[in-house]
């Protein structure tokens, strides 16, 4: 699959399918737009930031989030069921010893409902092909230099699972509340291409 979709045959197929469904009265373009709008209206990296902040302040929530992401995010009113089919959410935790980073080498699978639409670089062939092979160099290009002894895990979202990185809580934040902590959490931190 190429890095651009606009002119690809799959884009043409999607447009043809939309036209056929409308012509046969199965659904209207307005209905389709409404579904997409409803999905994207609530899809934002602020959702992921709330999850991370809660996990930082509440060790029991952190355990639940790591054990069963789908169930834990419902405690904050979030869901992985807003798209075409429910997806499994697997939260992977960064520690002093392990750093995780997410990619989809086959296309651009991404936890849209909790991180919003993906950044354009996430869909680029350069990122998708290089991060599985040279993650340390790629992360350095993002400005994240990891110590040699830190173990790197690259998660390729090649099926129905969506991944979220739980970043390390930054030092010197002991006095901060949950909302203040959430404001520190970045999208790249939850993909794994930055530290928080």
């Amino acid at each position, binding site marked *: 699959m190429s890095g651009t979709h606009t002119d690809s045959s799959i884009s043409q197929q999607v447009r043809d399918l939309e036209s056929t469904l409308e012509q046969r009265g199965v659904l209207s373009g307005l209905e389709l737009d409404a579904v997409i709008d409803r999905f994207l209206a609530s899809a934002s990296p602020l959702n992921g930031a709330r999850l991370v902040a809660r996990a930082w302040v509440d060790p029991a929530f952190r355990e639940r989030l790591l054990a*069963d992401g789908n169930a834990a995010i419902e405690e904050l009113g979030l869901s992985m069921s807003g798209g075409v089919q429910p997806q499994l959410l697997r939260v992977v935790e960064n520690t002093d010893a392990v750093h995780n980073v997410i990619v989809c*080498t*086959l296309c651009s699978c991404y936890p849209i409902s909790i991180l919003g639409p993906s950044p354009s670089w996430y869909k680029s062939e350069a990122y998708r092909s290089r991060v599985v*092979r040279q*993650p340390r160099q790629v992360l350095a290009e993002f400005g994240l230099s990891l110590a040699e002894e830190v*173990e790197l895990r*690259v998660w*390729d979202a090649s099926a129905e699972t969506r991944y979220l990185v739980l970043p390390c809580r930054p030092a010197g934040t002991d006095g901060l509340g949950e909302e203040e902590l959430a404001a520190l959490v970045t999208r790249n931190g939850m993909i794994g291409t930055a530290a928080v």
Partner: protein
Amino acid sequence: MACLPEPATARYHAGDRVKVRTYDPPHHTRAPRYTRGRVGTVMEMHGVHRVPDDVVRGVTPPSSEAVYAVAFAAADLWGEGQHQVIVNLWESYLERQERA
């Protein structure tokens, strides 16, 4: 750590060594090319899902299979590197690799 209950039909379990089949179908598949023929270790199961190879070919009904998170050592994929790559693979993409 299993994210979903393992069905009775799951053929592989955490710690099993598996090899990705070296096939090159004319249709869509979700076994990334860089994993084919490579040996990894089952880390956990990620539920049961419709096999995309069946879905895209219009096989009705498409078969459903266990999907696993399989961890590969970078050196086994690329001949170099210290990191791990974890890939989601449908059961039929895999064959058991007996320990030498």
